[in-house]
């Protein structure tokens, strides 16, 4: 293993950065009558952090499981590391690291045993497995919990241990399905930090998320999924520039009917979006248009001018917000 403690930014796998490592064309996944993934196209390149952004049920996990070669595609073409995920699944999986949406750690074993037993599935020798386990436990800051059973560990610790387990075979691609969902902010930042280190080492990261911040900070490129389809794909900044104005004015009204307020706002900014709890006014200069709102006789109880973000892109493309209340 090139080693988790090895020099950063050295790519240990002989794959030139930028080389396509996952290629999907018209990829479909059906479960009976449900079409979970409905003909998606994307190419993931070596060394990049690639994100799937979408609300629950968008088809993110189904896509990840196909890439992970544990779920056969129903239609379309998919190659992972240049191989066929069904016929050559075992060879592909040998080179992947997987951090599934739900932690499925071995609750009956200790943290360290979780890593060493997992290593054997990759035919890693016992001595090497022990060495890697200790390295990785240090990497995710769990070395003091090595002998502890998994059950009593906190959610954040379990997630970190799952990430460590995904790294045991020194993978070229790491698949992370909602790596920080359900974690408190502190735990989330620790995970981000580690993922960022992996990325710097040249490991290809493929992650799903419904956190804007995560997508914006970690992903070089991302796709936005909705109802099993890809509605947009690009770098986060490019998506925002392409689909959104520079700024957004959020208006809250105490008791008034949002729809009728929206009517009065027509013509201000580039367009208005009505949400259950607020109105969004898209514009390149928020401060400049706020006075116009008052001039039209509206009295918002709260006004917030902010930079636009991925959330706004998502809302614009799908007509819904990403994270349900």
């Amino acid at each position, binding site marked *: 293993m090139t080693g988790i403690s090895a020099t950063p930014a050295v790519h240990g796998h002989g794959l030139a950065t930028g080389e396509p490592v996952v290629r999907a064309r018209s990829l479909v996944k059906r479960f009976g009558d449900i079409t979970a993934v409905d003909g998606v196209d994307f190419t993931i390149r070596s060394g990049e952090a690639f994100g799937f952004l979408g609300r629950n049920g968008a088809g993110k996990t189904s896509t990840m499981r196909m890439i992970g070669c544990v779920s*056969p595609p129903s239609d379309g073409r998919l190659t992972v590391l240049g191989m066929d995920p069904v016929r050559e699944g075992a060879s592909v*999986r*040998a080179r*992947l690291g997987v951090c599934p949406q739900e932690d*499925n750690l071995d609750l009956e*074993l200790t943290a360290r045993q979780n890593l060493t*037993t997992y290593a054997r*599935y990759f035919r890693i020798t016992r001595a090497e497995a022990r060495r890697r386990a200790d390295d990785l436990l240090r990497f995710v800051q769990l070395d003091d919990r090595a002998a502890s059973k998994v059950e009593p560990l906190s959610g954040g610790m379990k997630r970190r241990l799952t990430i460590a387990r995904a790294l045991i*075979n020194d993978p070229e691609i790491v698949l992370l399905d909602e790596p920080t969902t359900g974690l408190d902010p502190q735990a989330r930042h620790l995970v981000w930090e580690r993922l960022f280190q992996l990325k710097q080492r040249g490991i290809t990261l493929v992650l799903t998320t419904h956190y804007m911040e995560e997508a914006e900070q970690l992903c070089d490129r991302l796709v936005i999924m909705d109802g099993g389809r890809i509605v947009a794909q690009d770098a986060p900044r490019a998506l925002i520039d392409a689909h959104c104005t520079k700024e957004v004015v959020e208006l809250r009204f105490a008791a008034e009917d949002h729809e009728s307020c929206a009517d009065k706002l027509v013509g201000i900014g580039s367009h208005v979006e009505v949400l259950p709890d607020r109105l969004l006014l898209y514009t390149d200069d928020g401060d400049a248009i706020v006075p116009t709102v008052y001039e039209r006789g509206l009295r918002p109880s709260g006004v917030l001018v902010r930079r636009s973000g991925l959330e706004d892109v998502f809302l614009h493309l799908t007509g819904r917000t990403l994270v349900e209340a």
Partner: protein
Amino acid sequence: MVAVMLGRVVAGDVVRPAHVGAVTARDLTLIRSAGSYFWLVLSGFAEPLLYLLAVGWGVGSLVGAIPLEDGRSISYQAFIAPALLATSAMNGALAEATINFFAKLRYLKHYDSVLNTPVTPAEVAFGELMWATIRGALYSGAFLLVMIMMGLVTPWAALAAFPAALLICLAFSAVGLAMSTFMRDWSDFEYSGVVQFALFVFSGTFVPLSVFPEPARILVELTPLYHGVELTRAMTLGPLDSTSLVNLLYLLVLMVAATAVAARRMRRRLRR
């Protein structure tokens, strides 16, 4: 190589010994690290032992000596001991291959993580087959030791009976795994428990099969534990003849068929 090809034929998928070993090794880690689990496993052979003592002495004192075909006669306890050996092999194998396996499959999502590695569903099935067999072997090995200590079997005959017990473990492990893939929830195990008990008491365990009416006898001859009992009895008391070969083949075929079912259903369930 042979193992790999055998795996392909039986399981319809790649089966590499290193992966099977890794699956079994995980379970063995549990035994080694959790002392309480070890005792739980060994305590499993207590049940047939209690029957050996209670029924063996109790009923034994009423029925006296049992005549064998070759003219020898043995105590009632020596008559039921090989059958209880077969039962402990069955119990050990099923304990692991049903409830524990089902929990890992359905509730702990254990195999979801294993199958993200190069390990295939068929290799998981084979690995768990080995582990359930090991647990059955622990039960029956411990029971054989008790039989030797009580003078119910010579050490040599015990040595001959152990492989027969292993085959019973393999066959019942495979059956348990296959059955578990059909179970809908825990309550289904109530039924399998009743069947397991029926097998235990009717397989010529406590009385020779000849005392049953003809239809019942035929029914019993179709069930697996009967063949196990016949085999352990032939190994310890004799005679070894062509019917022993039938018993042997029955268990072998059952093992292969049930493994094939388990491996294929595992793949269907886990690779969706």
